[in-house]
């Protein structure tokens, strides 16, 4: 399977602040659940923010391969994982390779 270049939508959960990713029908904390967006996400962002599902939503570039989604920019990869200096608090606490995924 080739590497897909996609755009995905992210933001933070209004109530608890968690980083979340748009799945096409809702929100997930796991970036691998992120769904490719159509060209214009403006209406979707407006609707989801108005529904108070998400705060500060924005679109980022990413790639998808074998079902794994990887944001292009390191800052978004950091958001997707959690702090590399506290992997116990990240989404991959038992994965020793997690920090390497960031770089």
């Amino acid at each position: 399977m080739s590497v897909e270049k996609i755009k995905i939508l992210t933001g933070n959960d209004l109530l608890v602040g968690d980083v979340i990713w748009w799945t096409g029908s809702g929100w997930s904390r796991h970036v691998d659940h992120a769904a490719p967006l159509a060209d214009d996400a403006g209406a979707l962002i407006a609707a989801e923010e108005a529904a108070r599902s998400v705060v500060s939503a924005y679109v980022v570039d990413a790639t998808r391969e074998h079902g794994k989604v990887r944001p292009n920019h390191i800052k978004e990869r950091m958001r997707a994982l959690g702090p590399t200096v506290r992997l116990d608090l990240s989404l991959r606490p038992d994965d020793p390779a997690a920090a390497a995924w960031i770089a």
Partner: protein
Amino acid sequence: MYQYDTHDQAMVDARVAEFSDQVARRLSGTLSEEQFRPLRLKNGLYLQLHAYMLRVAIPYGTLSSRQLRTLGDIADRYDRGYGHFTTRQNIQYNWIRLEDAPAILADLAAVGMHAIQTSGNCIRNTTADHFAGAAPDEVADPRPYAELLRQWSTFHPEFDYLPRKFKVAIIGSETDRAAMKLHDIGIQVIRNDAGEEGLRVHVGGGMGRTPMIAPVIREFLPPLQMISYLEACLRVYNRYGRRDNKYKARIKILVHEIGADEYRRQVEEEFAHILTLGLEPPPAEFARIAAQFADPAFDPQAPEAIDRSDPDFALWVDQNVHPHKAAGYGIVTVSLKPTGGIPGDASADQIRLVADLARDYSFDEVRVTHAQNLVLPHVRRADLHALWQRLDAAGLANANLDLISDIIACPGLDYCSLANARSIPLAQKISQRFADPARQRDLGELKLKISGCINACGHHHAGHIGVLGVDRKGVENYQLLFGGSEGADTSLATIIGPGFSEDGIVDAIETATGVYLAHRSEGERFIDTYRRIGTAPFKEAIYG
């Protein structure tokens, strides 16, 4: 320590009620994020890289044991069991739920604390010498002035929407332990030739994108005119500071562009007018504040001698205990820089332990340092060994104060949405590379400071060795600086050459220490040798 009066308490209680209502309206949808954002920031609640972050104000870095214990309890009850002490003597929690924020503010208010003035373009929480009231070289305790500044600046209607944020630091001795000249306003309590107490006022310093050392704007100010004079300083800034360009909006740019003499002239003109308005606090009010910072009841019979037979204890005393103004006492710095640890982080249990130690050994007082450590300011030397044993059992007895592993590091890209690169992993690698205590002591005082972006929360401009993380086409890169200092000999570090990868800069720093060891003269610190021999030998060794 200052105790809130009914007026202080009513103000913070009212703020809790107000913010509770604002959060409820946000969650119900009555307030949009655009409307809510400035309100939450007024209460120290940021939306950071991973979650909401709450920054709690610790005025002039001073805490009672009860307040510190509450900070530990908040870490457990509402966060993930730890807090991060910052380079502005505050504490941050990284994993706050919006719905919990009002309850946290209520817990803080119950012990006379809040999160006001920790964000936004207002006068931020005033910082001070963390050895205030304990240092033997002190002209006067700066904390009564700092408390007066707190009362003056909190909710000051004229200065709540300045061109940019505004930071004040105050010290009371010749030894500058607060990076005073690198603040928007830096104040030093001094005595003139007649022996009268007064204030020397520096204006226009700062780090960030355009680092500058603040020039002296007033050589000697009568103490009770401080509020009027600062009112004049701020008024001139508020009138002429640039609001058209965020990067040129700090007061340092204004002072630099019009010149210190012209800025001084305008301030003096405004000051003369303000003096006619009678804004000064009544002497009795200042005396009321000052009385709350009176010395605790030191034991005049406290012995000076201690048993140094335990070598680890003796090393810790030599490195982390400073002389005290009272015979038989010492000032203890509790290092929050364990080998391979996260600078400034402390677990809830560690926070509560230090609170207990303050209660048991330091007249109930704790200080937070801008170098991200904690201080027990008034410890009987006879109690040092018992104190050290309890610290050691909790992993808090690292004897590395002011050594190469006592690193200042901002949260960096691991937590901060502004950062371009990670700071903490670099600090961890450096402290591991130099883990050998004997090697650290041989290198002597070496202040290493790391920022993850140009905003310089990690004070890299003021490091003997500074590191600035940058984003080079999506890859973390680290620039190396030498020659900064934040003390009486304040200077700004400069970049010495091309940047490095994370591993590369650790090697480069190690190479630099080798150059220092090869060239140092008797008694010279790293910064002294660097100033004497210049950049060339370091560049030659590092870049070849």
